[in-house]
């Protein structure tokens, strides 16, 4: 299968890829093998590490259930660059992870990175014209703190690295590239144009790569969508976000859209009504998930579904570049009905089925095992207490599902709120979301704006969890046994939730 390399630059890149991972888990398909490459100097970044753990769990689940046609969840393959190189018979081991490690920045200041002290006087003066004292003393280990001028120097090493070489070697004619970045930060604003420029050159490590030069490239540039609290001790000041955005857009107008170097460019932003803590980086930089990130992830799916004919490139120049913006209906708490039809239809069924799958596992799985319903034990491998103690269920799937619930609760709580389901976020003492709960036993009222379909002629019709179990039993009987218990488990729930949602909601 052709590959879609997704470069997620900076914190925004990581968070968008996280949202994309949630969509793929729910069954959204891109028809590409996704290869995320995260570029972020802040190795301890909370958002970055949450995304990496999520991707690992996704991979572990996908590997276990891959090839089983009856299951729709976790269907799209996600690979590391190392996986691709290995599949292609490559020898050298590229970094076996999702994050590209930037060399020479750990515990370094920017002035050390550029070897400022070894410069002669004239060059030192030139550098001082371009960079402030604060810039030169900046600790690179936590990122570029909204300074793309620093980012553009440091990130050059990526395009000269072995990793980039391996990427270029692995790139094939039918593959595509997508770049995710914010325009108002440090890493993303620098990294996006730098990466694009090098891709269109088509020359890496002295070799020419015609496929790369003429590759189908999409990108999303995320405009400001939040503020941070004023902090005189922090270099990050959201008052400067708009100014930086305007400056970057001027640059893009000449060097990206102005020279047709990109096939599809997506823009998204929002009025910044929410204010995050002003954390310069590190483990504590963990912002709530935001709808903008989910919508950005949808742009990746949109790009993946765009036919080749609209993404032609000749001599490194896009023949028909397109520029897209995203909008919703004018409300501040969005349900599925507040999205326009194309967007809504691309996610509603999958997310709703996965939501109910997640809910059942959270609240009813041990109950169902205790009751020993037919789907648990009668049609094939059993889903008993042994099964739920194995790493597939106990670690990978449960961890992933917990992160999904936290993500859903975060986008619910944030401004603009994405609230397709009527959930109640649960937060700890530090106000970090740890889960959600529901306050009704009538589970078909949970999908906001979508009325429950009732059986008016049969007052004894099954409903709520009894109906859920009923659909799982039917699915289990239809599927019979499967190559392994995990495949059977996912197949039963995939088919069962599909039937359930079709019957009662959509």
């Amino acid at each position, binding site marked *: 299968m052709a590959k879609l390399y997704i470069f997620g630059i900076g914190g925004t890149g990581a968070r968008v890829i996280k949202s994309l991972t949630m969509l793929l888990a729910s069954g959204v398909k891109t028809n590409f093998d996704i290869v995320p490459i995260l570029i972020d100097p802040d190795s301890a970044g909370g958002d970055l590490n949450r995304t990496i753990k999520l991707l690992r769990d996704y991979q572990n689940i996908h590997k276990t259930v891959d090839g089983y046609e009856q299951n729709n969840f976790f269907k799209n393959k996600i690979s590391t660059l190392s996986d691709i190189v290995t599949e292609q018979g490559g020898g050298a081991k590229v970094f076996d992870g999702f994050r590209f490690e930037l060399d020479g920045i750990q515990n370094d200041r920017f002035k050390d990175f550029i070897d400022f002290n070894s410069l002669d006087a004239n060059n030192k003066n030139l550098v001082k014209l371009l960079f402030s004292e604060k810039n030169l003393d900046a600790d690179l280990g936590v990122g570029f703190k909204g300074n793309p001028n620093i980012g553009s120097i440091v990130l050059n090493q990526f395009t000269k690295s072995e990793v980039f070489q391996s990427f270029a070697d692995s790139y094939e004619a039918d593959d595509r590239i997508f770049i995710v970045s914010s325009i108002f930060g440090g890493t993303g604003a620098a990294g996006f144009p730098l990466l694009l420029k090098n891709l269109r050159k088509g020359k890496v490590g002295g070799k020419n790569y015609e496929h790369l030069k003429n590759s189908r490239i999409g990108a999303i540039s995320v405009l400001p969508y939040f503020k941070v609290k004023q902090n005189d001790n922090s270099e990050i000041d959201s008052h400067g976000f708009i100014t930086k955005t305007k400056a970057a857009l001027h640059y893009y107008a000449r060097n990206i859209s102005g020279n047709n170097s990109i096939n599809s460019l997506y823009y998204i932003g929002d009025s910044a009504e929410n204010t995050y803590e002003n954390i310069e980086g590190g483990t504590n930089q963990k912002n709530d998930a935001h709808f903008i990130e989910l919508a950005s992830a949808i742009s990746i799916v949109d790009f993946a579904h765009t036919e080749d004919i609209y993404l032609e490139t000749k001599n490194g120049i896009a023949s028909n570049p397109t520029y897209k913006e995203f909008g919703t209906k004018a409300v501040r708490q969005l349900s599925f009905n507040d999205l326009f039809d194309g967007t809504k239809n691309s996610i509603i069924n999958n997310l709703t089925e996965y939501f109910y799958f997640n809910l059942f596992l959270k609240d009813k799985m041990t109950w169902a095992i205790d009751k020993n319903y037919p789907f648990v034990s009668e049609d094939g491998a059993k889903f008993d207490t042994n099964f739920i103690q194995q790493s597939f269920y106990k670690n990978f799937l449960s961890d992933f599902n917990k992160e999904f619930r936290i993500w859903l609760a975060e986008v619910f709580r944030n401004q603009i709120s994405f609230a397709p389901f009527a959930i109640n976020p649960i937060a700890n003492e530090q106000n970090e979301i740890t889960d959600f709960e529901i306050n009704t036993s009538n589970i078909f009222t949970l999908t906001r704006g979508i009325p429950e379909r009732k059986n008016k002629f049969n007052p004894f019709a099954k409903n709520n969890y009894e109906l859920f179990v*009923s659909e799982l039993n039917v699915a289990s009987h239809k599927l019979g046994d499967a190559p392994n218990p995990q495949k059977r488990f996912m197949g039963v729930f995939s088919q069962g939730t599909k039937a359930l949602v079709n019957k009662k909601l959509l």
Partner: protein
Amino acid sequence: MDLNKFFSMVFEWLGYAGTFSDDLFQEELYTSIGLITAIVSLTLVITFYFIINRPSFSRWQHWLIMLLINFVIAFLVGLFIPQNIFYGLGIEYEIMQYVLFGLKTGIIATAFFIIWTYCFKWWKSHAKGTPKLFFGKF
């Protein structure tokens, strides 16, 4: 095979009651009661697995409820049908005879119920697999 003979063997396996049993055989009541018992058991098994057919009524306790209903119906059949027939023929027996026969009918009906259960419990139903009477597995 003669149904009266067959059912008489089944019922009298639980005890031969002398002239009472002879009169039941004579009036071919073994056939009618035997068939009623078999059909009612079948009906209740089908009701449990395929008509009620709900996850909320699918556990062994619910099966047991159906089994007890079956027992009660069979007991009443065994109690009253011979009474009515014999009364019409002017034959008198003590009430205990009828009660004992009612209990035998209930026991036979239970056996039928279990046999029908093991014929149908493998089929597609929300009560599939219920109950597991043998070592908790089968």
